[in-house]
């Protein structure tokens, strides 16, 4: 979403489009970004656009948060695997847990 806004202002429905997510979820996400001071919604004609506050944007922080989000998703899968493990014996594993349709290891990343 930040990447999209870095190309120019967009309306909420334009932001929602690529993600197949509800407008409600987009608004929720925008509130997080607004609270962080990363985006503003200047008053103007409806529908109001969302603007990226470039000067407030420390890209490194954005990258770190993206990375953190990937790591967290991976560790949620690990949570699910751990939940299937018996004590310390080699129990049968019962298959993985959450299968978010997430990105693959498309980047060098922590194993």
């Amino acid at each position: 979403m930040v990447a999209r806004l870095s190309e120019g202002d967009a309306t909420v429905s334009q932001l929602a489009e690529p993600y197949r997510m509800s407008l409600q979820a987009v608004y929720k996400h925008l509130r997080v970004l607004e609270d962080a001071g990363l985006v503003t919604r200047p008053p103007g004609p409806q529908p109001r656009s969302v603007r990226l506050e470039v000067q407030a944007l420390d890209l490194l922080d954005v990258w770190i948060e993206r990375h953190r989000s990937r790591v967290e998703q991976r560790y949620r899968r690990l949570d699910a695997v751990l939940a299937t493990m018996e004590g310390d014996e080699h129990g049968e594993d019962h298959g993985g847990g959450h299968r978010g349709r997430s990105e693959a290891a498309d980047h060098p990343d922590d194993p």
Partner: protein
Amino acid sequence: MEKITEAVIEADPKLPIIRMTRDFTATPAQLLRAHTDPELFAQWVGPDALSTRIERWDASTGGSWRYVAEHDGTEYAFHGCFHEIRPDRIVQTFTFEGDPDGVALETLWFEDLGEGRTRLRAQSLVDSFESRDAWLRSGMEVGVNQGYAKLERMLADGTV
């Protein structure tokens, strides 16, 4: 002690190191096994068990590993060495074969918190700040469609 139920990430300002901390409901032995048993590891390292193919795996001190992740018809390979494996830590190297000159030195510590909980601390040391930034930025290559998708899903399902 405060519980760290979500991954915390920190980029060291003075060294090209990324640190990560997260708590798990598991013993140190279980967490170690989830990192060293190739079948278990393949289940969680990638988004889909079928998308991760372990090609080489000798999880012992001085051993080595290689796996290939497949995503949308493209393969991404990673390899490294298990420099040291102990009950409470793993020290290993890590290279993404798309950037064969880059190598990270990774250390994972398994800290027993008692009551069946373990804190995983990991640090990854790369050879320059440029490498570190490129590594963090690499997620950007996924493009707008993937960007923040996970965070959004987490927001959408109320887990954030």
